């Protein structure tokens, strides 16, 4: 009996305290202008994520509260920014007309923090076997599943397996834009030698585990992985120089996107990434800095 009373009392106290906590934060959120002065939420592209995560680590030690999440890729970040769930979206592709049409009320402001190249990454044995460059037409055949064997491109006698990124990933959009321009990409091929992957780490893991495979991947993600190689596009290699001059067709800027010009903690975050320390992180992860691009 006494136990019952004690238990119910305890439960009551806990429930009440939770409710109290609820209402008190409600009020804080409503009254405090700007509400969350020292807290920042960042989400989006897995390509930009390593830089943002490292930058957040440094800022966190200085007392800023920053959460970084990479769910859903670039489009996921943009959607969450538009829904007011994050203050900064990471994107590995420029905003498209579709993005702006989908969220007409949002004032997207993109700040470029560096650049990178999407490479058509193949296995070393394919590269060494003779597939060192692809034309646009050949790349289209490859990603539409109309290529059965690397022999057809003068490579080794090895079946082709294609990994494409899932819709909404920045890498996929950059590739589609190169292959199809303003046209919509066709639906994914129904070939059995075709699979879909998500983030960059997952893409790399899949390429590493599948002989004869190819897939679009940020070129910096294969540094140090001898089993993988990047083929040139139309004979142009994704060297830093070719990315800078945009001679390489799948060079892409990397962005931090805000709703309106960045203010408060979002501004200090963007400024930090653009500053010397942040730009060092951009180099560390294999991307081109603003200075290297001649934009600074």
């Amino acid at each position, binding site marked *: *009996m006494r*136990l*019952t*009373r004690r*238990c119910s009392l305890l*439960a009551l106290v*806990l*429930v009440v305290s*939770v409710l109290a*906590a*609820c209402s*008190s934060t*409600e009020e*804080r*959120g409503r009254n405090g202008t700007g509400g*969350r002065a020292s807290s920042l*939420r960042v989400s989006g592209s897995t390509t930009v994520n*390593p830089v943002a*995560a*490292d930058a*957040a*680590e440094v800022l*966190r030690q200085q007392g800023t*509260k920053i*959460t*970084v*999440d*990479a*769910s*859903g890729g670039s489009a*996921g970040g943009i*959607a*969450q920014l538009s*829904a*007011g*769930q994050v203050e900064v979206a990471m994107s590995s592709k420029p905003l498209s007309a579709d993005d702006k049409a*989908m969220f007409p009320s949002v004032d997207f402001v993109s700040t470029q923090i560096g650049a990178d190249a999407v490479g058509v990454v193949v296995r070393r044995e394919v590269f060494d076997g003779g597939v060192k460059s692809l034309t646009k037409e050949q790349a289209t055949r490859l990603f539409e599943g109309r290529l059965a064997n690397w022999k057809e491109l003068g490579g080794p006698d090895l079946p082709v*397996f294609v990994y494409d990124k*899932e*819709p*909404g990933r920045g890498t996929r959009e950059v590739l589609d834009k190169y292959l199809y321009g303003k046209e*919509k*990409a066709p*639906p*994914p091929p*129904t070939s059995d030698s*075709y*699979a*879909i*992957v*998500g*983030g960059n*780490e*997952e893409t790399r*893991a*899949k390429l*590493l*585990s*599948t002989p004869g*495979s190819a897939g679009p991947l940020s070129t910096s993600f294969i540094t140090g992985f001898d089993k993988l190689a990047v083929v040139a596009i139309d004979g142009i290699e994704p060297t830093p120089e070719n990315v800078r001059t945009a001679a390489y067709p799948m060079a892409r800027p990397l962005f931090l996107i805000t709703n309106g010009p960045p203010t408060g903690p979002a501004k200090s975050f963007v400024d930090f990434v653009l500053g010397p320390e942040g730009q060092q992180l951009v180099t560390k992860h294999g991307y081109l800095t603003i200075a290297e691009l001649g934009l600074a």
Partner: protein
Amino acid sequence: MPLPTAPAALRAPARVRWVPLGTFALAALAVVGVAAVVAFLVIGVRSGPLDWVELLSSSTWDPPRSRFGGAAMIFGTAAVAVVAVALAAPVGWAAAIAIVELAPVRWRRLLRAASELLAVVPSIVYGLIGIAFVRPLVAGAAGVPGGDSLVAAALVLAVMVLPTVVAVSVDALAGVPAPVREAGAACGLTRTEVIRSVVLPAARRGMGAGLLLGLARALGETIAVFLVVGRADGRFPTSPGDVLTRLVRPGQTLTTKLNGPESILAGTAGGHWAALCGLGLLLLGAVAALTVIGQRRAGVEGAGRRRRRPTRRSVGGGMGRRSWPGVGRVARDRLVRAGLSCALAANLLLVVAISVVVLTRGAAALRPGFWWSPSVGASGGGIRDQLVGTALVVGVAGVLAAPVGLGLGLVMTEYAGPGLSRWLRTLTLTLGGMPSILLGLWGYWLFSIRLGWGRSWLTGSILLAAVAIPPVVIAVASSVAALPKERREAALACGLRRDQLVRSVIVPQALPGLVTGTLLGLARAAGETAPLLFTAAVFSGAPALPSGIRDSPVSALSTHIFTLAQDSAEPGAAHTAWGAALALVVVAGALVLAAVPARRRMERNR
């Protein structure tokens, strides 16, 4: 108002209005919760144009062109669940027969508990096992690059479904009265013949329920399937022969589609969102129907009420018909018994193998520092913050689930008439079988978007409370049902009104059940991943303890493992993921283990 100590003072306790009011309010909360999930899906479906015919029949899923055909996903779900149950049911049934009919009585409880250990392992850990072992196996055997395939998902699910089949079947077999067996044996039947012609006909209904409940579990599972099924949409088979080919290819199930990035990309209105909600409704309908039918069949009242008429399968009839020529009855008896024991051994071997794998791979967690150091960068460090986050979310979930579960349990057993009571039971079972991704999406839509909480630990607690409530209700109800009739009569004879009876007799009686049910429910909740992914957890940067409700995410063990398992190729990430997995198993296991002595102690003190 001083609360009287009834027996000593020899007067009835004062009337307590808050008892019925409180219990009804709490029970109503649970009812509203379930209704809200259904309402959310219906609102979602109505938020945009949705062509149901296309959704059910076309297999072209192409959001940019607004084509939403879900046939490939429906096929994926059905194929995965059917293959999983087809693999698990025979082994589970045989193992259950071996436990109840062949094993010595004193081992029975131990064997049953051992085979149920598989149910304690959270689904995210099964996902890791799938990535580490099943995917390479499928890749090698079927030549599928990477091994992502429907069949890999089915294999993982088969193991996850096994404890359900065993537990329900053991209950059904144990419910067959011993004299029936003795009568059979006295007729000169061998052990096997007794099982086949006497025990199985009586237990068949319950064992079939095991299959249905296993199927429901397989349909609703999200995370383990997500990690091994691949990301491509898959296709609907073009011919019967194509079915096998489709099985060894990547595909999607209804749950993995909803757990994918599209749920975030679709916005919360419009054709895309409506199509996703349509898939959700289909899933909920299928799982709820199977769960309710299965539980009805498994329930004692069901087995007793409808007795099957004796058929030819009953005593004698089946015996001669299927005798194997050339094999004597005794030899045959031995053969079948050996087969049954093998199934049980396979089941136990699976338990041992999984324990060994989790222990050896999770070596990181054997280092104490791993538990209390924070994580560093993408995959290094320990799991301190994740542990604290999980404890917070799960702890508050327990605080929410216990009173609501108690209220619902009391209304169900004490206040409701038979009709309402049956209805509430169905509701509880539906909630218990609800695919956790649907809870996650509901929380995302309602709390994150509509109420503007963003990612909040409290959303996570509320959703996990929904996961924990059904075990609480069921435990409370069975505790109350165990109240001796004499005590109730004695209380009524003392002149107690119903609310007084509830407060002074029923609630104390229900307490041990409340505590065990809550602990078991929380063990389940601790391992849940899908409800937290969109609503409560972020990968890095969340403070160990949130300071408010809105935009106050936490890190959780399960989501941490999910991210490490999916988005990382570094060996360090796998090491940390397995370490965290062992920690999660330890947490869930500790909650389950705590339930047993807690119950015993409270029952003694009553």
